[in-house]
């Protein structure tokens, strides 16, 4: 089915471990985004990408790494997970000309 998917949907990990969250979209949208959602903060942008091999920092990039070797995939890696990175992570995409963003279903990450 066309759309934007995230995996895993739920993840529990331990402090210090590396975790990768996957995001895949089938629309060939140019732009992709990673947000985290925490109570009292709304959604905050972590990283975004304008095209394959082009990425840029958002509001809260520390502790995260992204890559985009293919247009349809935008993985987010927590190199050494911390408890403060417990959150719900949303991936989104948009076309190059439109302003509407399309969101994935989210990944709930718990770092123990």
């Amino acid at each position, binding site marked *: 089915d066309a759309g934007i998917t995230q995996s895993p949907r739920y993840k529990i990990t331990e402090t210090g471990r590396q975790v990768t969250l996957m995001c895949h979209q089938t629309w060939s949208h140019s732009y992709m985004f990673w*947000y985290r959602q925490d109570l009292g*903060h*709304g*959604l905050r942008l972590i990283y*975004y990408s304008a095209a394959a091999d082009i990425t840029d920092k*958002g*509001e809260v990039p520390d502790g995260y790494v992204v890559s985009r070797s293919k247009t349809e995939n935008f993985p987010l890696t927590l190199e050494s997970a911390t408890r403060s990175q417990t959150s719900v992570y949303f991936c989104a995409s948009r076309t190059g000309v439109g*302003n509407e963003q399309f*969101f994935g279903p989210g990944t709930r990450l718990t770092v123990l």
Partner: protein
Amino acid sequence: SQQGEEDPQALSIQEGENATMNCSYKTSINNLQWYRQNSGRGLVHLILIRSNEREKHSGRLRVTLDTSKKSSSLLITASRAADTASYFCATASGSGGATNKLIFGTGTLLAVQP
């Protein structure tokens, strides 16, 4: 830091009533968007209003924008139980790559009682 702040934080109404949510922001914008989030789900785009527009309609939704007050409101008319969700405003500012970044408010939780 948050660009937008919604008011109220929570709103409870009866089916058939109108719901009004407000959003205030801090800096000049290119456009302002409203999104809905059902519990446990991703966000869904509702409507976009550009900085040179004052009012926009989409079905039962009416959005106003007052750039002099740096505020926007979302009105949902004749609400239904299915409208129960969190509603977020998001602003796009700047030029070039900066316009691709949305800054979200903290949201209004709307509960529509049947």
